[in-house]
Each structure stands twice: as structure tokens, then as C-alpha cells.
């Protein structure tokens, strides 16, 4: 069981690093979608009792993160006629180095944190931290709105991963609420991205600097 979890989380961590290096938006969207699906499947590995509600949730998560959101992002990308984020504020190589260092630091930091015995051998905590860091790095370092949305998704994936630690203690109602909220947030962001594309005829956030002091 632990191996399966670790495999999934390890894959997700690898995808983080790939996401930091890619300049092509389609592949970034694909990476984030795969990561989302991978993590969406995790409850099946962790839950001892996989009732229909859990299945429903997994199905919902996978559908939304793997298909709906990527579809929205691709549509916006095509409308804007871009497929690259060529001028990142933090270059690809520095991003990769920072990301790798962050992953290492997350491993080391998680090792020093007090963890319950059943979590001590899993990669859940370092994986969550690395994803959060990657997400922040993408949010800070990229200039295209789509890349930033992807960064936000990676950040959320990290938090989701951390939430799996509490999967037995957080009531399902609340968990469903959290998931619903996160999804709605992505939807709203997607809509706004779409409108930005229409209003500015671009998805370059460097054009969004009218509001300043």
C-alpha cells in the first residue's frame, strides 16, 4: 500500500520538476492534468473502505482536473493564439534548480517534523510541500495567465495531498465542500482568463499593469 502511494506521490513530484522546465503551454496543461488525475486517484489507495461516495468523489475530481479544466485552458490558449510562455520572469534553468532544491529541502524538513508512524515512511508530506513550492514558483515566475493558473493548480494539488493525511478525520461533508470550492475557484479563474483574453486580446499578464501606484 505504502509503495503504491509513494509511487504516485513520487510521480507527482517528478511532474512538478517537469512543469518547471517546460515552456510549451500544451505540455504544461497536460502535466498538470496528469498530476491532478494521479492525485485524484489517491483516496482509492488510502481509504480502507471505498464506498460509493468516495468513488463518486474520485470520479468527479479526475473528470474535472483531468478533462474539464484542461479543456477550458486549451480553449483559452487557442483563442489567444499562443502556445508558449517564452519570457518567464524566472528562467527555466533557475526554476528547475530552485524546484529541485525545494524538493530536497522539503524532504529534509519533513524528516524533522513530528509525524505519526503511519505517515513516517510515505512521501505525502514532502510531496505536498514540494508541490506547494512548485506552485508558488510558477505563480511568481511565469508571465502568461495560463501558466499562472497551472501554478495555482499545482499549489492546490499540494494542499490536496496534505489533506489526504487527514482523510479519516475530516468529515466528508467538509471535504466535499472544500473540493467544491477549489473547483469553483478554478472555474471562476477560467472564466476570468477567458474574459481577459477577449478584453485584452492577449494572455500576457505583463499587459495587466494598468492598476498601479
Amino acid at each position: 500500500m505504502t509503495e503504491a502511494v509513494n509511487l504516485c506521490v513520487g510521480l507527482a513530484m517528478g511532474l512538478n520538476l517537469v512543469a518547471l522546465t517546460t515552456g510549451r503551454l500544451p505540455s504544461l496543461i497536460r502535466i498538470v492534468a496528469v498530476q491532478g488525475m494521479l492525485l485524484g486517484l489517491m483516496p482509492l489507495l488510502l481509504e480502507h473502505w471505498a464506498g460509493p461516495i468516495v468513488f463518486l468523489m474520485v470520479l468527479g475530481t479526475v473528470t474535472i482536473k483531468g478533462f474539464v479544466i484542461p479543456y477550458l485552458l486549451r480553449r483559452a490558449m487557442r483563442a489567444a493564439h499562443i502556445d508558449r510562455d517564452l519570457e518567464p520572469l524566472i528562467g527555466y534553468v533557475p526554476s528547475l534548480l530552485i524546484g529541485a532544491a525545494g524538493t530536497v529541502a522539503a524532504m529534509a524538513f519533513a524528516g524533522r517534523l513530528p509525524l505519526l508512524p503511519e505517515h513516517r515512511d510515505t512521501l505525502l508530506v514532502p510531496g505536498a510541500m514540494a508541490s506547494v513550492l512548485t506552485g508558488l514558483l510558477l505563480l511568481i515566475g511565469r508571465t502568461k495567465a495560463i501558466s499562472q493558473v497551472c501554478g495555482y493548480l499545482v499549489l492546490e494539488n499540494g494542499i490536496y495531498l496534505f489533506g489526504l493525511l487527514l482523510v479519516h478525520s475530516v468529515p466528508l461533508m467538509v471535504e466535499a465542500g472544500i473540493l467544491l470550492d477549489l473547483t469553483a475557484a478554478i472555474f471562476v479563474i477560467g472564466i476570468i482568463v477567458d474574459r481577459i483574453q477577449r478584453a485584452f486580446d492577449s494572455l500576457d499578464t505583463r499587459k495587466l499593469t494598468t492598476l498601479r501606484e
Partner: protein
Amino acid sequence: MTGGLVAVWALGLQAVAIGATRWPRLWLALFLSGAATLLGAGLLALGQGPLWEWRSELAIGGEPLHLRLDALSGLFLVLLAFISGAGPLHASVAWSQRAPAATARRGRTWWSMTVLCTSAVLLCSNGLHILIAWEGFAVSAYCLATLERERTAVRAAGWLFLAASRLGTLALIAFFTLLAVRTGSFDLGPMRACPDLAPLFWLALVGFGLKAGLFPLHVWVPSTYAEAPSHVSALLSGVVGLPPLNGFVSEWLIALGLLESAAAHADVALITAPALIALTVSGALVLATFVKAVSVTFLGASRDARTRSTVREGDWRERAPMLALALGCVLIASAPVAAWRLIVPALEEVNPLWTGLAPPAELVTLGRVQVALAAARVATTLVSAACVRSRGRRRALTLHCGLAAPTARMQLEATSFGSIATSWFNWLLGPERRYARPRGAFPQHAQFAERIKEPVLERALVGPVALVLGASAWARRRQHGRPQSYILYLVLGLLAVSAVILAEVAL
């Protein structure tokens, strides 16, 4: 009927007057009766009337209302009543004919508010309520001073006044809260019994000193007095400076004290003798300055043809209050003993040791000498007037040393007038000079202007202000509109909070 109740009645009248600003005559009647009542209250308190205190269950801002009228507040009430009563009479012309109706009404409203708030400051005995009344006074005074706010200079001066008074209020907030922390309540009653609170009074000094225009807290004074209507300046200077005695008599008392210490050969004379000399020098400088200002403004011929045609003399309503106030000054100067009697109960409030202080014999003699000299002045003036009336019929141009066509612009300017005295202080004042020397055989244009930087506003404050504005500009550049950086700030905030937590845990 005690003075306190009369004072409350006066406050009520003032409040009613605010409601009647739409009808100038009604307002004037209400306001003046309010001022008269205030005067009565002050006189009652100054007379042998007992200390009046009133505590109410009614809480304003969580503090029970506590009013108190002693002789000291009574004295100030009397002064306030005089000055505030004279103002509207002087202004009734300005506020009814020349200014638009709206300005006139605003003026009436804020005048009433100012007087109301000032009386409230004098009556309240709870720090919180004093703060409320004090700030109310600041805002009303600001509104009064900027009645003609169409002019930029007026707005700038008003803003400076407001800023300075805000600084004062913050100092007072600190003062009263510290007091409340030490004594447990905002009520000033317990304060009188706590001598160990003395260091706090520096804060109060800053707070009240700003409004009183004490150096170096005077930054707002010159521009505000210059830009506000004259009666407003009079109220501002009269209310918050509140000179306990008039001009010479008060200075004479101070100087006499200094002199006696010198004569007694006390050690303190090492300080007081130089102080006396410095007082003389400053007095002479003030004389020079005053002569300069008055002469350039009022005397000689008008430099500007436009002024000649537009400015006209005010009527009796404008002049009468000025005359009344001037008469008051003359009376105090020539009857110092009476003024002394008026002051002593108030002084007892400040320091109980001064109870029953008899006017010194010197003061009695001084009063007589002043009266005699005044009589002599009147007599010689009458003789001089008679001479001029009988033999001064001929009129001629002022002597100009043969200049054929003198113009009014050839009179001495203020800058030139003061140039000798200021030149001695160049090393200290560092005046800015602008020349345009006359050139050629028929010079068209020549100019000389000298300006001295204001020491606090233009020198001492320049550094800190530049620092704050620099920091502000730096912060402003950080808000540049790039959301990427905003998220970076968020991360930095997280790091900063973590650092604070780590530091706290490590301690």
C-alpha cells in the same frame, strides 16, 4: 445661581445659535446673548463664587460627564466671551455683504462651533471629553480659517493648521491615555493629587503648545494667521494663547522678577541677567519688525493703483469691536491692579501657594505713572491737534530731494527696511536673495528680494520629511501592478511571520 449653571446655560444658547445660522440677525442676537452669559459665568466664577462641579450619570463615550468651573476656567471664559463676542460684530459686514450667502452661513456656524467647543474644553473635567471638545475646536477653527477656500494659499495654510493640530491631538491622546493608565480613569479629578505624573506634562505641552504656537511648534502660525480672516486669527490667537495680562504689564512683571534676582545677587541671576538682556534685544527686534509690518501695510501712499480704487474703509461695525478690544488692552495696561485682582483667584488654581497674593506696591505706582503719562499724552496730542488744525492747512508732496516726478513705488520696501537688522543675523538665518540689477543707461527692470527660511518648517523638518517621502516613494514603486511580485510579497510575508515566530520560540 452659580457660575457653572450660567456657563451651561451659555453653552445651550450657543448650541441654539448654531441652529439659527440661517437667519443672521437672530443668530447674532442668540450668539451675543450666549457670549454675554458666558461672560457672566466667568465673572461669577472669578468672583468669590465657590468651585462648581457637576457629575452626571450620563456617559458619553463610556465616560460619565463631569463638568467643573473654577476661577482659572472662569478667567479664560471671560477672555473667550470678549474675543468671541467682538468677532461677529466685526465680521457681520464681511459675512453679509461681500461674501456669498453660503460662506456667511458657514462662517456663522463654525464661529458658534468654535466658541462652543472652546467653552466645553474649559468646562469639561474628563480627559476624554476634553479631547472631543479640543478636536471639535480644531476642526471648527480649520473650517473658519478656510472659509475662503477657493484660494490655494488658504487651503494650504488650513491644511498645515489641521496637520499641526492633529499632531497636537495625538500628543494629547497619548497624554490623557497615559494619565488614564496611571490613575485608572480619564477623569481629571485624581490627577490633581498625583505629583509623580509631572513628566507626562511634556506631552501635554506639545499638545497644547502646538495650538498655542509655542516655538518650535509654531509652524502653522504664520501662514494660517496670514490667510485666515482677521477676526478668525484674533480668535485663534486670543483663545489659544490666552495672554494672562496685557503687553507691557506682563512683560514688566517678568522682567522685574529677573531684575530682582540680579539685584539680590542670587545665583539664579547668572541666568536671569542674560535673560533680561536677551529680552530687551528681542523686544527691540520685535519693535523693528512691528514698525516694518505696520508701516509697509498702512503708512505712506498706496503702491498700487488698484488698491487705491477698490479698498475702502469699513463702517462702524467693523471698527467698533477693534476699538473695544484695543480699549481693553489700554485699560489693563493702565489699571494693572484691577487686572491683578482679576487674575489672582485663577493663579490660586494653578498653585495653591499663591493664595491671597496682594498686588505689589510697585504695581500700584506703575499704574499711577501709566495713568499720568497717558493723560500727558492725551494733553499734548490735543495741543498738537490744535496746532495742526489752526496752522496746518497747507498741503504738499512729501520731500523728495528734488525729484521731479515721484511715484508711490519709490517708497522704502519691507525688505530694505529690515535689511540692516537682518544682515547682522545672516550667518544664522541664511537668507535667500534674488537680484535683478539695473543694467544699461535706461534700466527697465530691477528687483531685489530677500526671504528667510522658516527654521522649523523649511530647515528642521526638511530631513525627516524627505525621509518619509522617500520611503513612501519606495513603497509606491513596489505596488507596480505585476501580480507575480504580489505573490512573492505574500511568500515574503510568510517568511517574515515565520522568522518572528522562530525568534519568539527561540527566546
